[in-house]
């Protein structure tokens, strides 16, 4: 009995100096906020597809896509623990905080990758599973291990990883990649640089301290502001083009016109703004642009979902442009 007490006592003593991870800490490894965006865009890609799927198969597919996204998040946290420790925004993540051992994060990431890809293949089809496997590989290896520390174009190319979910959702339903899936991919791909560079503008010390070659660090903030405007302008035709495909319609096009006008206006505002003015109001415009970018993406996919409803089909039939589609 004494031995047992001694063991428990020493374990507790050790744990008091180094806290033990709870279930929530392991869940944090999966980047739940990123997962929620993945779930939403993948679900949108699945629901706007012109093929209906058994609800259980659709639900299971979304769960496994989300699990795959979570797996890549865990792999990213395992690899990036050293720079996460330096950055204020990421220092409290489970691995740099010492709650979860790096090996555990790696094991969880690899295990969930395998399960999610296999299960998506069985639940939906192997093209969707292959795309999910490629997405995990792209985010964990191409972006996290290679591009992130190498080039200021890291998030431009790495943005592809976040752009795949609606395409996977579409492939789950249809079994093939169509122009609509490519355009949904392009929408997120082109949206990623202005979104992250706006974040980099007001998280200015973090990336520099960690030695991550963000555009703000390598080319300066003036260039970053110009690049935000350039990518925002390039995003507009992509966002509008979606409106003229079989998944678009007057509702989407109307929403896209308003959202893109506001987004371009915001980007012009950032481009015209100097650092002195930004520092004076604690980067208010940059933070506002970043927050709006989240709404921008959400609203585009919400408009696509609205177009998939029967009421929108009645409205679409009134226009010759979509009525014959």
């Amino acid at each position, binding site marked *: 009995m004494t031995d047992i007490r001694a063991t*428990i006592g020493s374990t507790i003593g050790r744990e008091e100096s180094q806290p033990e991870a*709870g279930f929530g800490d392991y869940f944090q490894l999966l980047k739940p906020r990123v997962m929620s965006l993945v779930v939403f865009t993948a679900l949108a890609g699945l629901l706007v597809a012109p093929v209906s799927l*058994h609800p*259980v198969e659709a639900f*299971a597919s979304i769960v496994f896509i989300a699990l795959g996204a979570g797996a890549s998040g865990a792999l990213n946290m395992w690899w990036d623990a050293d720079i996460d420790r330096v950055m204020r925004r990421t220092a409290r993540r489970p691995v740099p905080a010492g709650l979860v051992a790096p090996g555990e994060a790696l094991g969880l990431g690899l295990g969930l990758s395998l399960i999610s890809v296999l*299960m998506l293949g069985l639940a939906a089809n192997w093209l969707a599973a292959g795309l999910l496997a490629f997405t995990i590989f792209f985010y964990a290896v191409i972006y996290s291990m290679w591009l992130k520390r190498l080039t200021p174009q890291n998030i431009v190319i790495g943005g592809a990883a976040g752009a795949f979910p609606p395409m996977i959702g579409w492939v789950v339903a249809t079994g093939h990649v169509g122009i609509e899936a490519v355009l949904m991919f392009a929408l997120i791909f082109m949206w990623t640089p202005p979104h992250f560079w706006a974040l980099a503008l007001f998280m200015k010390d973090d990336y520099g301290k960690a030695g991550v070659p963000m555009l703000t660090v390598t080319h300066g903030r003036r260039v970053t502001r110009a690049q935000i405007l350039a990518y925002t302008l390039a995003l507009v035709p992509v966002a509008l083009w979606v409106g003229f495909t079989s998944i678009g319609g007057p509702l989407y096009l109307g929403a896209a016109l308003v959202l893109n006008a506001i987004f371009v206006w915001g980007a012009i505002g950032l481009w015209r703004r100097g650092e002195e003015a930004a520092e004076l109001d604690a980067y208010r415009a940059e933070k506002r642009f970043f927050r709006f970018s989240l709404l921008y993406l959400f609203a585009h996919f919400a408009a696509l979902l609205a177009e998939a409803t029967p009421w929108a089909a009645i409205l679409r039939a009134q226009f010759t442009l979509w009525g014959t589609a």
Partner: protein
Amino acid sequence: MSIAREHEIHRRRFGRNLGVALTLAAFIALVFALTIAKVSGGGMIEAYDHTYRPALDPAVNPGAGGQP
């Protein structure tokens, strides 16, 4: 220190074990539901005996009807 004393570490481990158990239970339920959905193909599942087969009906096929 009493062996029955509840410590933060016990609460945390219980939470972790409960989380793993619930996750596994949810995974099993999902795979089961998926299996039913795949096998039924959207329709009701019926065993062999519940399906009418004219070849086995003595009224249609006089040669049938004997004990298998």
